[in-house]
């Protein structure tokens, strides 16, 4: 991006306009603003280090899940099965290692392998058979949700090995490991999306599949790979979820689906507007959580989460559309 800005500075009037900065970083300003407002309203509970750690720590799983989701979204495919895949993975790892006392490493490998398998199933139906990814992953997600209840007997499995708890929740500088995994994954996604040919290829497959095909890109392989990555990352998020919570709840997935999409789409309006991007997603996840945490501390509990995430998703996609329109029109 720096290179882009520099080169256009050579041939044309320099510096991106003020509007561009607002577009890219406006969400950070709003984020800071609501954080300040909540701090003033609830100095005792909101503006505390503990609360900051809670916010950063508890939502790391959502961050990881959303980052995986960015890959198929960039390629132009929906993956609505990620959230159920996550809770299914949590159930599987808890069941295998906690209930059946299988070796933990083996349990984790089996869980991740199941993730790859689900990704392959999605890809087979979507890429090979040509069914819409929206419908396919909606079905597969529902199926996985049902299986989670079946395996667990519809109850939360509390027997999660302590090693898994350490793996996810051990505190480093006061923050759980899960948060660092999220940040690492952010770097990985940022690197691939922005600094490798593969990242460009993903964008071309998403924006012009026929063009990508005729330019010699392995379009089917890229689409297949994207669905495998999102399912694999979702199963990793499941491991983290089991470790963070210390239990596996078969119904946990449903409460993650909308927040993940809201964060992905809201993230696409910031940092690199118009593209799904890692740091935009990072900001979006914590922006949304800050808002919700603040409102909960003000006493609006329970229903406020759905209202906030649902509203944010609609506003994010509407905003994205407005931005895209204004760009086309300004030409």
């Amino acid at each position, binding site marked *: 991006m720096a290179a882009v800005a520099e080169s256009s500075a050579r041939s044309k009037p320099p510096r991106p306009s003020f509007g561009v900065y607002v577009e890219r970083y406006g969400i950070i300003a709003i984020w800071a603003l609501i954080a300040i407002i909540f701090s003033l309203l609830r100095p005792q509970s909101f503006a505390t280090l503990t609360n900051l750690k809670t916010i950063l720590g508890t939502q790391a799983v959502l961050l990881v899940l959303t980052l995986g989701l960015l890959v198929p979204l960039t390629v132009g495919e929906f993956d609505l099965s990620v959230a159920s895949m996550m809770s299914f993975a949590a159930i599987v790892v808890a069941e295998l290692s906690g209930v059946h006392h299988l070796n933990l490493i083996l349990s984790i490998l089996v869980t991740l392998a199941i993730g790859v398998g689900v990704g392959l199933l999605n890809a087979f139906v979507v890429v090979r058979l040509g069914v819409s990814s929206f419908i396919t992953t909606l079905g597969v997600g529902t199926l996985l949700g049902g299986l989670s209840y079946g395996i667990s007997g519809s109850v939360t499995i509390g027997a999660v090995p302590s090693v898994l708890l350490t793996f996810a929740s051990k505190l480093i500088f006061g923050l759980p490991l899960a948060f660092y995994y999220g940040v690492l994954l952010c770097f990985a996604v940022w690197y691939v999306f922005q*600094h490798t040919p593969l990242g460009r290829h993903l964008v071309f497959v998403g924006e012009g599949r026929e063009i990508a095909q005729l330019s010699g890109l392995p379009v089917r392989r890229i689409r297949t790979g994207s669905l495998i990555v999102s399912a694999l990352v979702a199963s990793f998020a499941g491991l983290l979820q089991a470790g963070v919570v210390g239990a596996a709840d078969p119904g946990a997935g449903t409460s993650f689906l909308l927040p993940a999409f809201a964060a992905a789409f809201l993230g696409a309006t910031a940092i690199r507007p118009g593209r799904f991007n890692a740091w935009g997603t990072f900001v979006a996840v914590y922006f949304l959580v800050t808002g919700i945490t603040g409102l909960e501390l003000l006493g609006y509990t329970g229903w406020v989460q759905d209202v906030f995430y649902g509203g944010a998703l609609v506003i994010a996609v509407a905003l994205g559309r407005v931005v895209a329109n204004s760009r*086309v029109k300004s030409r």
Partner: protein
Amino acid sequence: MDALYVSDLSKAFGGAKALSDVTVSVKAGEIHGLVGRNGSGKSTLIKILSGYHAPDSWGAFQVAGKVAELPLTPGQPASLGLSFVHQDLGLLSTLSVLENFRVGRYKAASLGRIKWRNERRHVTRVLDSFGLHVSLDDTIGQLAPVDRALVAIARALSDASEHEGGTLILDEPTSFLPRDGVEKLFSGMRRVAAEGLGVVFVSHRLEEILSITDRVTVLRDGRNVGTVDTPGLEEDDLIEMILGERVEQSYASSGGTLGGVKLSISHLSGPGIHDLSFDVREGEILGLTGLAGMGHEAVVYLAFGAQRASEGSVTLEGREMAARSIEPRAAIEAGFALLPGDRLHSSGVGSLPVSYNVSLPVLGRYFRGGWLRERVEIGEVEALIRGLDVRPPDPTRILGSLSGGNQQKALLGKWLQTRPKALLLDEPSQGVDVAARKEIFSQVRALATEGAAVVISSTDWEDLAHVCDRVLIFRYGRIVAEVGSDSISEEKLIELCYSTATRE
């Protein structure tokens, strides 16, 4: 009385003047040509008339004697009697012909029942009057491109003729039409003009302008450089008005020495093609043509693996590939490059920067030390598009913001940099202005001179006559005639295409 009159129209984008003090008057009953290079202000003028842009200043504006204020609000052009056919036609491909025809025009109250029987009768009558015989229940997607264009035009023509006076504006409607479709269109235009409406016809094809219009307005750099009577106007004079200087209307000439056989197509069969064989020699530019739907347009896609062939083989430099299993990826590796006809659907992504689009096939070059060197990429793309005279030569602009000719030059550059052994082009000059055309064909000739085999599939016979060493004429999926370099002329090609099109 003028069917359309607008005076002293000005519009700037940023600092750039797109239109300065342009005055245009279209008489009732007249077919009025509007020509100019890409970027001369034609599109801006039309977008102001359709209410998309607001002008910075204007003098007077009226349609068929009705005075109106600019900018026009949505719906206002239609109520004034202005109808448009844009290049993209504005049809919904999943809806039927009837539905497309009547969307927003149903003769029923908004909540009233649509009287389909009446609608059908009305639409059938209109289509018949334009010589269009398609089923009303076919979806637009099922129609041939020619019929699609004609449906859009028939729809606009029928809208236009429902008014007491008014003007029909056709914005490059022939770009996607073969010659026989053009004739149908022209007779429709004449009908509308005969009813006392004005017709504005925008086209890059000067011979069409000369043959159908009564007067022509030429725009250059946002100014009206003259409105002249068409009868007696010579093509060279018109070109001079468009370009501002007299240029030799010639392309890089052929006649280099040809080498041995470079590319062979043998026994190729597929959609629209039966048992086709031909060779292309080193340094040769081969043209494929015919009337629309005769199969010549499918050949380059089949050879490249963009469409699936059922039989045959393709041999490039002695390396044979079974046509059935060619993938674009493998074709590119073997040394092919394809510049598709449908620019923003198959060739480049309009919403992405020029640099992204151009560097796509060679992106690996810029990936060094685990990092995509964007600065190097932009530098090299800039050098490349400067060499092709792309304006503006700014790789960071999004592709869709360039004019058609400049998009095409950039996308040609995308493939030229891979140094292809065989270059395949489909309708390379569609929607491209005269100067850009010249640049494109001289680049193609230069590649051939270096030893590549070039295949151009086109229905622009003027271009083919100027550029090709040899032209094959298709009819019903087979080659029916071959013209060598000494006897290629536009007239000869037209004659062969039409004469062979009549079934024995």
